[in-house]
């Protein structure tokens, strides 16, 4: 069994979001980049599966669409334990573009992991698009995945609950929190080994751009918080009813 994990390169979760002067692009000055949090959990689960005796997982590959500056993120994925990395050499233009690039490399895997969304543009799109392009089943909102012989057993979230489902490989699992307990942190040995692991660079294919951003805005600033003391709970509740009109 071969596993592929899609790796998004996103701003650190503590990044203060700012845009350029004409508000047409995200200002990347001083931004620290990380593995998209759900992709990091997916990779952790992929490594756990590989280490499980009898799971039959031979290799874990990671893939990203990005320019050379995303290689630090891919090296981190290799340090966590992936055997090989693939980078499609292009800016990630929109979800359709990214999925089209990944479709070049995602064939031939039994299990592909994607994250439920990327923490930057919140698209929730690349995983499902890729599954459709390469013609395999997808399950979304996955918080648990086990390999049981030739089948995968997954837990997914549905409205108001959760569901255990099973299906045949090949399959693309779009994961959320719970898929692994904590993201794995690279150990010194892993970091050393990552330097010599293969990182293949692939030329992008041409596709049309379907969605773009004309501009961005920050949410309007909030008015100052109205503060009450511990013994004014009553006043607060009345303000919620009479002033804010939410009770």
């Amino acid at each position, binding site marked *: 069994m071969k596993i592929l994990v899609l790796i998004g390169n996103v701003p650190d979760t503590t990044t203060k979001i700012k845009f350029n002067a004409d508000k047409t692009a995200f200002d990347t000055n001083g931004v620290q980049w990380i593995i998209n949090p759900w992709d990091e959990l997916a990779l952790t689960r992929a490594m756990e599966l590989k280490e499980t005796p009898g799971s039959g997982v031979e290799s874990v590959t990671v893939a990203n669409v990005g320019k050379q500056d995303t290689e630090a993120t891919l090296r981190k994925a290799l340090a966590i334990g992936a055997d090989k990395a693939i980078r499609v050499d292009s800016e990630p233009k929109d979800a359709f573009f990214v999925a089209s690039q990944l479709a070049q490399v995602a064939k031939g895997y039994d299990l592909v992991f994607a994250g439920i969304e990327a923490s930057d*543009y919140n698209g929730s799109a690349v995983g499902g*698009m890729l599954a459709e392009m390469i013609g395999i089943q997808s399950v979304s909102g996955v918080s648990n995945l086990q390999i049981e012989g030739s089948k995968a057993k997954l837990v997914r979230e549905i409205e108001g609950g959760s569901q*255990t489902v099973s299906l045949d490989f090949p399959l693309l699992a779009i994961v959320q929190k719970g898929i692994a307990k904590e993201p794995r942190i690279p150990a010194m040995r892993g970091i050393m080994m990552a330097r010599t692991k293969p990182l293949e660079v692939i030329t992008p294919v041409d596709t049309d751009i379907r969605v773009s951003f004309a*501009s961005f805005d920050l949410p309007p600033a909030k008015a100052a918080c109205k503060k009450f*003391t*511990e013994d004014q709970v009553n006043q607060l509740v009345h303000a919620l009813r009479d002033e804010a009109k939410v009770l």
Partner: protein
Amino acid sequence: MSVLIFVDNTEGKIKKAGFELASYGAALAKQAGENAIAVSLGKVESDELQKLGNYGITKVLTADDARFASLDNQASAKAIAAAANQTGSKIILLAHNNFGKAIAPRLAVKLQAGLVSNVVGLPVSLDPFKVNKHVFTGKAIGHAVIHTPVKVLTLSYNSFGLVENKVNVTFEAFDPGLTNADFGLIIEQTQTVSGKILLSEAEIVVAGGRGMKGPENWSGLEELASVLGAATACSRPVSDEGWRPHSEHVGQTGKIIAPNLYFAFGISGAIQHLGGVSGSKVIVAVNKDPEAPIFEAADYGIVGDALKVIPEMIAAVKEIKG
């Protein structure tokens, strides 16, 4: 020409998100000068479908096929694509819920459409097609432009609201032409939480953080939630420690919610937490540290001990609710 609205169901019932999407779809159809047509997959009670007429839907295509109960992503996307082709729809709408999120990207590929998810309002313009969406987990709004003739949108919950608009609704049986081979997914077990207000649908949410000290203190929060008719939520460390289930974790890596009223008890207001809740219309913070960042995001606050405030708040709410 029409706007096609995919209304999903949970065990035969349409949730509030479905009616909100119907309201949005009807308004968008009006803006575009088209009809608002819904498509429903699986067995749905007929009086549930009838209710779509209360929100401006003039026609419902019903694929009354029990196999759709498995919420198979591939099969459902195929069926909705067939409905879009049959109705000649150029705009297809889904809720940004678990299921909508799962199938919209597949559908967009099938229809060669541009997809914008997490949309927060009606298009700003139809030509070019420009619509606003959440980006950076609620920390900003992006003005997205779709360049393809066919468009797929998923609507962020509680961003539009229910708009009553009673019209005459007709029903038409619809056969998407699927075979058993299209349904690959087998359901082994379903666990649903009954009798509780869903976090994703709640108008009021009561959340606790590490400042609640321990799981034993949640009975007060649950009682407050029950008198308010609210759902309960928590910060990430609370679910990581196992004080509360993962399904209650809100924030950047958990659920993103936008209720009308959000209470944060003993939550510091870390940037990752705020990302998931800043879409709330009114935020109330209770924290004993007057410098806690949550007060910068809050509209109302109490500087004090959450464990003391909760019982008093229960009493005060009971009093005004009579």
